[in-house]
């Protein structure tokens, strides 16, 4: 694993000429699970995150760490410019995000803006920066949420940002060209640190409302993202896959 704070062109070029995947939030629970699946296929993975990889991450010379702050206006451009000139992006998975909780009437404008900036505007910036570098059959996956489809009491800013991703995805899809594809996944309640407080407070109700009777795992979300990036999904474009154990239909 390359643990340099700043990815340089020389570090990425040192790897093989295997396809390149960029995963933002690549050290978070879902992003890390995605990165490890891609690494397992021999891809070079740029894990762009503000936090270091977890201690138990599988060491790999193809795991290229880059410090990335989603709310840095220059972050997207810096990330794309750090790629070697000849490296096309095969998979772009944008999993960086925050999950703030606040009663709607108490959400300050700063909190609202921060959430939209990190969850939605950062995705806009990365898509703009990455568009010229996408492989002709590249696959982009954004992470929406059940909150983006149904709303979420106490998370209006989060739900708005996640619904915004759906509108963004369904509009950008017309301008990618070639056989480039963009899709979203909408996880339900996944067992990770982000949902800890929610599960502590409403876990029993959530489990009762989930037909499969359990929380999802980051690996289960990653497996769906992996499918969307695979040749098997070559005609899946503009789709949102719910990964929620049936929560949404119950």
């Amino acid at each position: 694993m390359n643990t340099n704070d700043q990815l340089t062109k020389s570090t990425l070029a040192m790897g093989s000429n295997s396809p390149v995947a960029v995963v933002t939030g690549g050290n978070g629970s879902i992003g890390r699970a995605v990165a490890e699946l891609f690494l397992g296929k021999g891809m070079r993975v740029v894990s762009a995150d503000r936090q270091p990889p977890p201690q138990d991450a599988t060491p790999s010379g193809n795991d290229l760490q880059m410090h990335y702050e989603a709310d840095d206006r220059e972050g997207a451009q810096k990330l794309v410019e750090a790629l070697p000139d000849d490296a096309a992006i095969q998979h772009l998975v944008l999993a960086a995000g925050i999950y703030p909780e606040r009663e709607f009437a108490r959400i300050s404008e700063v909190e609202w803006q921060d959430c939209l900036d990190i969850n939605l505007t950062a995705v806009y910036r990365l898509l703009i920066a990455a568009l010229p570098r996408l492989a002709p059959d590249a696959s982009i996956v954004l992470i929406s949420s059940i909150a983006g489809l149904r709303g979420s009491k106490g998370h209006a800013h989060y739900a708005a940002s996640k619904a915004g991703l759906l509108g963004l995805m369904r509009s950008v899809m017309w301008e990618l060209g070639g056989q480039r594809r963009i899709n979203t996944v909408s996880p339900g309640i996944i067992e990770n640190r982000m949902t800890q407080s929610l599960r502590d407070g409403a876990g029993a109700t959530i489990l009762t409302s989930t037909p499969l009777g359990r929380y999802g795992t980051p690996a289960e979300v990653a497996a769906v993202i992996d499918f969307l990036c695979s040749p098997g999904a070559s005609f899946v474009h503009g789709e949102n896959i719910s990964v929620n154990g049936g929560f949404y239909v119950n």
Partner: protein
Amino acid sequence: MTGGKSGIGQACTDALLDQGHRVAVLDISNDTAPQIDSDTQAQLLNLRCDVRDRQAVFEAFAAVQDQWGGCDVLINSAGIARPGPSETLRPEDWNVMVDVHLTGAMWACQAAFPALAASDRAAIVNISSVAGRMGMPHRASYNAVKAGIEGLTRSLAVEWAPHGIRCNAVAPGYVDTSFTQLLEESGQLDKAPIVSRTPLHRFAHPTEIAESILFLASSAASFVTGHTLVVDGGLTIDGAWYE
């Protein structure tokens, strides 16, 4: 698999066999006597079955049980087409559409239930269509049964989850099959406007639909249930509606 002898169903059967699965194909075009296909090293069991006939469907599943002792995945792909103007649609054409697509799928789910409930990786995949979500002139019965399939899918996802059975659907857009080629040659289908409304600017290959079906049936989709996966190259998003 019901209806596994042509188009998407055939592509799905081929893909399942390629992956080493044993496949029982329940199709009305099969011979009367059950046939084990020797070319596929006994991995393929062909059973003649009219899915409208509930007893025949149960007998077919009993034959699968006898042959292989169980069933992990059910794929409902039997289907027909009876297009025509709604104001003069004949009762028999409406009824056969409902019977084959919707009622047939329900009987197959019922017949497969005991085996699926006993499996530790049970999944049902139904075939809807973009027609289940759009309005299409002269396709009222098709649109209605495909919307019905999605309702059935959601209901079984919730009802049978406690039995460990996931239930999802795939909604294909336009696919290059011998059927669509026939429609095009006879002037009933004009590809150009459909292709121009599809962001990927082409029809799908049947294998691309099969891959999505196999994904939903696989452990990679272990937390996906009640979902209809649209595989249409972006057609139904219609984000360029104002043009």
